[in-house]
């Protein structure tokens, strides 16, 4: 039972991890807590259904198109909504993302209805046996993709000019600007990468939690908690936080009481912040006055 609870918890945690990464990316480069991050993925899931079912595209073409669309969505949100208010305080930026959240939820519901929909790609239901614990193909795909995207992001941040520039903007946007880094472009790129990740999340998570305008609400809350848990500035911390939350929820549900399952993440964050306000891996960053 312990092995199964842990493995299922890792599988659930991997659902939170990618969204947590995107939350961290946007926050550390733009000081914005992006409440619409989950909805980018939701848009991706609906587009996935449309490409697969209505237009009859193959799975991989669909993945490509969805990721391209959500990347553009991220860029568009930055360009049209966030850039004009970029110099505002964090509360204004946060409120703007609430607006984007409601607009996307409303528009998707208006176009495709609010009923929960099945995602037309179902993974092989035969479970995979990993040392006595079972995991479904869908969850295994999810963990695989999360790892692959993690590797791509690692490479991007450490070995590409744009990635290194992004890190420079994270560390100090003013100095980055003085050094000739196009900060505006980097911020737009950040939102694009957030959209890029969301596209994958939408496609991967849809067969598991099904598709509706509200599908990502709970995932986003958990991903946000995971991001804070990891320190809000650390991608590695966010991933570890997400996996820990997934596992802890399952262990609490399995060994204590199922009614404690949903509150586990919040208990963890309160306890952690009491002892380590900078999060699990985070370091104390500059504070705004």
């Amino acid at each position, binding site marked *: 039972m312990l092995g199964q609870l842990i493995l299922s918890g890792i599988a659930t945690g991997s*659902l939170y991890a990618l969204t947590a990464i995107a939350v961290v990316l946007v926050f550390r480069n733009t000081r914005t807590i992006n409440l619409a991050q989950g909805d980018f993925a939701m848009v991706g899931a609906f587009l996935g259904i449309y490409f697969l079912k209505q237009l009859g595209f193959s799975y991989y073409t669909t993945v490509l198109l969805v990721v391209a669309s959500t990347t553009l969505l991220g860029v568009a949100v930055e360009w049209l909504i966030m850039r004009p208010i970029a110099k505002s305080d964090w509360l204004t930026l946060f409120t703007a993302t609430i607006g984007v959240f409601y607009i996307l939820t409303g528009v998707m519901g208006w176009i495709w209805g609010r009923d929960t929909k099945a995602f037309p790609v179902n993974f092989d239901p035969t479970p995979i046996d990993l040392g006595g614990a079972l995991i479904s193909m869908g969850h295994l795909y999810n963990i695989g993709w999360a790892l692959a995207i993690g590797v791509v992001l690692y490479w991007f941040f450490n070995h590409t000019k744009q990635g290194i520039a992004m890190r420079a903007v994270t560390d100090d946007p003013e100095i980055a600007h003085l050094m000739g880094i196009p900060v505006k472009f980097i911020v737009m790129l950040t939102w694009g990468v957030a959209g890029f990740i969301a596209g994958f999340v939408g496609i991967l998570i849809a067969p598991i939690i099904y598709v509706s305008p509200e599908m990502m609400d709970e995932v986003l809350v958990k991903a946000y908690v995971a991001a804070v848990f990891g320190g809000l500035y650390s991608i590695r911390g966010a991933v570890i936080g997400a996996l820990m939350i997934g596992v802890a929820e399952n262990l609490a549900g*399995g060994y204590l009481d199922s009614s404690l399952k949903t509150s586990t993440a919040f208990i963890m964050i309160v306890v952690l912040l009491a002892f380590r306000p900078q999060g699990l891996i985070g370091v104390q960053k500059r504070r705004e006055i």
Partner: protein
Amino acid sequence: MRTMMKTVMVIAATAVSMLGGTAIAATDSPGITDKNILICSYQPMTGKVSSYFRMGKGADAWFKYINDNGGINGRKVTYRMVDDKYEPARTKSAVKRFIERDECFAIVSPLGSAPTSAVIDYIVSKKVPLIGAGTGAAKNLTIESPWVFPLYPSYFTEGAQLVRFAKEVFGASKVAVLYQNDPSGKTHMAGIKSVLEKNGVSITAAEGYEPKEVDVSSQVIKMKQSGAEAVICSCAPEPAAKFYTERAKLGWKVPVVNVFFGKSPKVAELAGNDAVEGIYFSTIFRDFDSPAAPIQQAKSILKKYYPEETPDAIHLWGFAGAQVFTEAIKRMGDGPITRERLVKTLEGIDNWTGSVVPSITIGEGNAPEHFIIKDMSFVLFKGGKFVDFSPPWMK
């Protein structure tokens, strides 16, 4: 003299108008005009449980059909639905508006245990009829008020019947229960616990889930580990689909019976036919495949007014309340349409077979005597569809 005459005439006119006014007040209740009947309903039109909005669509389709065919005794029905997202706080403000601002004559076919529990005391205190609410929570069914006409048997009764089902159909003496952590699930649990001893059944694991929960894997693992010989699932369609997917993943062949509000084609659509194959569901209505005329009529009405909908039992919940209401207004004829008369007329319905429910007899008294449907029936998901199933005691 002329002044005196004038005064007398004014007094006479005032008296006549007052008498007239009184007469009008005694004639019809709020919400009724010569040409219209205003009735209202709260529905989860959006949100996590929006699949239950089918109930509102079923009732709305019926009233649209009635209006397109001349209304009821010359009056058209305005069926006003408001989205409460299945959030009791929203239901409260919606119902307050219905009664105090809109002056709705009655509340017909609304949905939800938690939403109804939040407003039922207020509704009965205002003496507004509440007809066919989609709720099985004990409070809403046992309230000592003549204004409430519950739609279907209580979740308590259903829970008790499911234990008997597990014992007699599955031969199980150890059961696990997966239930929604809200009034509906807790009432099912209470019903289940009430008959355990009588049936010689014990609970090995009782696992709750939150409606918004991302997955139910830990609950399913725990139930499997508990050595249960059968599972009773008090699950709505989306969580039920997650449970059946997880059960299939773990290769757990345990027999399952699901409560009626999870009986929806949505479950198989989301989880896939293979994962749902062999699951039993309790139910209230005949399936849409039934050749019964009222069911076929409901199917064609739904197709006409909501062509995008796949016919589902939940649509029929809405039809049932709407049809009973229509029948009562029809029976009231040209007389005054008052809330008191509506209650009396509903209580006079005896062995009526004109609706999607095979036969309706409504008793006199309070809510517990007013059930529109009294017994559960059962179906089995087999070969991609629901087929009728009769447990031993119904044969």
